[in-house]
């Protein structure tokens, strides 16, 4: 199976700061890869290269076989699902309209029906939710709606930027299990940014550890635990054990 997402020798600088230093990573079709690292490690910058919210200074980024630098960023973003950390629901639109956003932008048939289906996928009742305002929902419901919005146009690929980071532990666990079910059901390819090793181990097939703009190690959770490749990965594991 070919790579759904690929970064080859990708570099990005912001002034004197090196955000990405010759990073190469592949995400296979149907695979979930977690990008883990601390703030400033470059994990979010790498994620944003895949829907051209950021354009790298050097290297090639490929989405479903196409070099993204040759594609129209707006078209690309409409094909790739995206869940930001804060949900990013438009506060002046009801939930139904928020979730129907991408189908509407792509001119698909019956966006409200697609929105209803997506709400059901994430465990929200369209009849109760579609007409409510984002501020009337709990944090967990808002984040579910944000996931529904990313999936409403049925993309093959979803990018998630610390999607459950701002939630309390119980709500987070609920959303994590919902996400696992969705992945299986929809055979999604997912790239997930997180700073939580436990979350990465739970949700991802492989974990990519980033540190100061470089990839330290890319491996399945078990292998990462058994054979940390660098001192930084060992520190990360040790810290997670103390905390977890």
């Amino acid at each position: 199976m070919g790579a759904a997402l690929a970064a080859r020798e990708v570099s990005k600088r912001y002034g004197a700061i090196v955000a990405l230093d010759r990073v190469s990573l592949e995400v296979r079709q149907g695979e979930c890869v977690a990008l883990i690292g601390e703030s400033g490690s470059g994990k979010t910058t790498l994620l944003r290269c895949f829907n051209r919210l950021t354009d790298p200074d050097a290297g090639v980024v490929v989405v479903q076989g196409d070099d993204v630098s040759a594609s129209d960023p707006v078209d690309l973003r409409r094909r790739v699902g995206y869940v930001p950390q804060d949900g990013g629901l438009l506060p002046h639109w009801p939930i139904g309209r928020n979730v129907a956003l991408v189908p509407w932008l792509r001119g698909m048939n019956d966006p409200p029906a697609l929105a209803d289906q997506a709400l059901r996928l994430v465990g929200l009742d369209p009849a109760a939710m579609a007409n409510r305002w984002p501020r009337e929902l709990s944090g967990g419901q808002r984040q579910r709606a944000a996931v529904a919005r990313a999936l409403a146009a049925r993309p093959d690929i979803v990018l998630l930027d610390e999607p459950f980071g701002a939630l309390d532990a119980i709500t987070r666990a609920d959303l994590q299990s919902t996400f696992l079910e969705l992945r299986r059901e929809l055979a999604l390819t997912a790239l997930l940014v997180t700073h939580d090793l436990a979350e990465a181990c739970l949700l991802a097939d492989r974990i990519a550890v980033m540190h100061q703009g470089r990839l330290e190690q890319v491996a399945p959770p078990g292998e990462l635990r058994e054979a940390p490749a660098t001192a930084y990965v060992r520190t990360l594991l040790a810290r997670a054990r103390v905390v977890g």
Partner: protein
Amino acid sequence: MTVGVMSGSAAGALHPARLLAQQPDPPIVVASKPFGESYLLAELFAQLLEARGLTAERRLGLGATEIAFAALRRGAIDVYPEYTGTGLLAILHARPSADPRAAYAQVAREFRERFGVRWLPPLGFQNTYAIALRRETAERLRLRTLTDLARVAPTLRAGLTPDFLGRADGLPGLQGAYGLRFRDTRALLPAIKYQALAAGEVDVIDGYGTDGLIARYDLVVLEDDRGFFPPYEAAAVLAPGLAERRPAVVAALTELSGRLSETAMRGLNRRVEVDGEPVARVAGDALRELGLVAPGGDASGPRPEQGRAGLADYLWAERATLLRLVTRHLLLVSVSLVAAIAVAVPLGLALERARRGAETVIRGVGVLQTIPGIALLAFMLPVLGIGLVPALVALFLYSLYPILRNTYAGVRNAAPDAVGAARALGMTPRQILRHVRLPLAAPLILAGIRTAAVINVGTATLAAFIGAGGLGDPIAAGLALSDTRMILSGALPAAVLALGVDAALGACERVVRPGGG
């Protein structure tokens, strides 16, 4: 009491002469400056023109000499009453002649040569500056002349009009001629100087020789024993070319030449300023007494007698006029506001896209806000003249800043996470602006519009000084005629209007608040 200045044009419209005269000629625009005698003289001109079968349009209370004269030069008005001394000093910047005839000859010649403006023969009276004190002060200090005053001036407080403080024939010249040095000199507006003197706030004021209020407050006018003040003979001045185009105007107005004595004028001023009689009635009576109109042919038509009725009765009696003024005021406010919205909102959105330099542009527009209203009107006068257009332009300029500032701040600060998500999910910049930034900024933009509208309702009262009408008319007239009730008849509706506009836009703001309020 009916307000001459307010009802004058309505009366003119009903005049039989106007219905009979099937002439295509445009009306003669008669103007005045914003003080009582000027209103009265302009009303005399207008009624006399109407009695001779011409149509008169009144533009009373124009800002001051500079505004009235600039309007005359451009032909925006046809005629207004002016004084020879003012013409010499304020307009020609010439040294005044002590001889009234020489002064008149000089203004008549130089105005014709330099501006094409025609002075008709003088009306017959002089209204020069008068230095006035309370009778008690004059008797206690035994003051009869300005020379006497110079002796005790260092113990007295003077309240002088800004005009008088700055003019060569005002305080600066007076100091030179008599060596006058007051203990304290403060600037007082004409509308309040008499009250300030009567209340003992100041000891000396400048007035005009024919002011009716000199008699009302029993003041003593000091004799100009060194003949310092230049002659101030009143006359009608005509716009360039008017005399040639409309000889009937010259014929009608010269009937007044030499007919008004100082005593007669002081009596007429007194009826207007002290007794509070309507300008139109006093002018009509004067024309009948002079035999210039037939007895009974009241040019201003019959009016209900209101005397000194209460404010509420007065407002009720004037409701038709006030409604017309409110409508005019709303026109001024709404047209200028709509134009400002049409410019400031797109500009604010454009600046959000081009952030570099945005602050500079917004600050530049903000500087406009600091120009005083009357100064802005004066700057624009040479280009735009007087009346509706410059008033709309001024109000438009004043409305830009709050709308621009709020639009820019609103779209720039609109929920950054929502904007970021909209972009990440594939909205184009234009879609983000239209569907995200603009709706989220709408309450702030509307708050800016609301601020501009309320300021605008207040500022629009200044439009009266350039003849644009609205609720400033009775305010300007009331200030000129010392009529508090008349001032309130403009100021109260303006305040109510401001509150109403604020409430209406507040309701709109709640409707556009995103997320269902």
